[in-house]
């Protein structure tokens, strides 16, 4: 059992170090990815565009946030292939932990696992947001490509970061309602979509509550803002 090495997944291995070279033209998400804590929940919002080499929109219908745990979701930022395999590994670790111990991993522990995997060897260049709810409350983290794990009330990663942060700086307040959380996260994605060339094509929202994770996508951002 390789449980003794926390820098590698217990099941599977990390990719070879040479594999993530920038010379390969692989799909990148560019992306605006946002995590916001509210009084009792977490709202994660991303755009839906994938691009190649910063010039071509290679996909207009990408779901860049996935459930990784009963009450947590992770965004894809950076290399799409790296992010997808990273998500599968994190999800397996969380399920194994839960099956073995009969209780879900805390969000802090989940963040540590994610951070250790990135630190242990490049899972390609990714820069995700992790958000989840556990008995200690709602948590969001940004995770940098070298494994740096930073918790905050709201976090943003991806190429649209500055535009989205501008909105959140103005709008975020403590103890937001869940609906207000959805609204400000969506408006932050909207701003980034307007000004960042690598972000666009609508919004995906992941609502993380005590009941679980609900992920839905909208081609038209106004659909979300009107109902919020």
């Amino acid at each position, binding site marked *: *059992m390789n449980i003794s090495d926390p820098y590698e997944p*217990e*099941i*599977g291995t990390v990719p070879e170090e040479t594999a993530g070279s920038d010379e390969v033209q692989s799909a990148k998400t560019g992306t605006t990815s946002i995590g916001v804590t509210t009084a009792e929940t977490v709202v994660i919002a991303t755009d839906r565009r994938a691009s190649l080499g910063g010039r071509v929109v290679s996909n207009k219908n990408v779901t860049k946030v996935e459930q990784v745990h009963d009450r947590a979701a992770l965004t894809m930022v950076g290399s799409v292939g790296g992010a997808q395999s990273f998500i*599968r*590994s994190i*999800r*397996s670790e969380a*399920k*194994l932990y*839960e*099956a*073995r111990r*009969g209780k879900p991993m805390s969000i802090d522990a989940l963040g540590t696992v994610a951070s250790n995997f990135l630190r242990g060897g490049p899972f390609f260049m990714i820069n995700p947001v992790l958000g989840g709810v556990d008995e200690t409350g709602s948590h969001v983290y940004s995770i940098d490509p070298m494994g740096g794990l930073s918790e905050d009330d709201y976090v943003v990663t991806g190429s649209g970061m500055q535009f989205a942060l501008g909105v959140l700086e103005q709008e975020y307040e403590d103890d937001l309602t869940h609906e207000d959380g959805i609204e400000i996260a969506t408006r932050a994605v909207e701003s980034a979509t307007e000004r960042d060339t690598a972000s666009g094509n609508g919004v995906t929202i992941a609502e993380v509550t005590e009941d679980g994770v609900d992920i839905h996508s909208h081609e038209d951002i106004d659909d979300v803002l009107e109902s919020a």
Partner: protein
Amino acid sequence: MQGQQQQAYDRGITIFSPDGRLYQVEYAREAVKRGTPSVGVRTEEGVVLAVDKRSRSQLMEADSIEKLHKVADHVGIASAGHVADARRLIDFARRRAQLEELRYEEPVDTEVLTKAVTDNIQQYTQMGGVRPFGAALLIGGVSNGEPRLFETDPSGTPNEWKAVAIGADRSEIQDYLEEHWGPDLTLEAGIELALGALATTRDEALEAEELAMGAVEAETAIYSRLGESEINAHLEEVDLEEDEE
């Protein structure tokens, strides 16, 4: 001389005796019979697992007796025999289930998982310097909406069942299951059949705290444990039926 030769097939690694038997595997089956029984019942609405976990002392924490294990979202396993040996197999199954999800992003099929576990058990009947697992497992899961129930034994043979018992008093409990199982059972009826089966070998009434039960519903494909109050409610139903008979 004959006696000494006989003994040679009886010790150390598993090798065939002249009449084609593997004594170590047979002894391992005996070890399974020394454990308290576990029962599995398959119904159209899901699979039920029930284990008897009586302890020798009231001072032992009942929760520390592990005979019923969650393996994946859609699979549970009940064990009988050596708990320590069973734990190794359970962890093998948990890892195998996640490996399958990593590789295919699909929940592992109950039959595929069972055969992976039995292939692992089989290796311990053929290699040098090892002994067979002294545990049998009941693997209950739902794959493609279909409830499945498999048994593994120390030889590594996988068998699929509609309803089955492992552990002590297996044949008596199996007789009860054969008499009462039918293809139209609801999940509730399956739970009560499993309880009735476990009750057959007990002189005193079953107590919820001496039992553990789990079920995988066909509709949701989610494994869940039954709480003590749920088990008690079902026990009352079982008692009523018996009074009527």
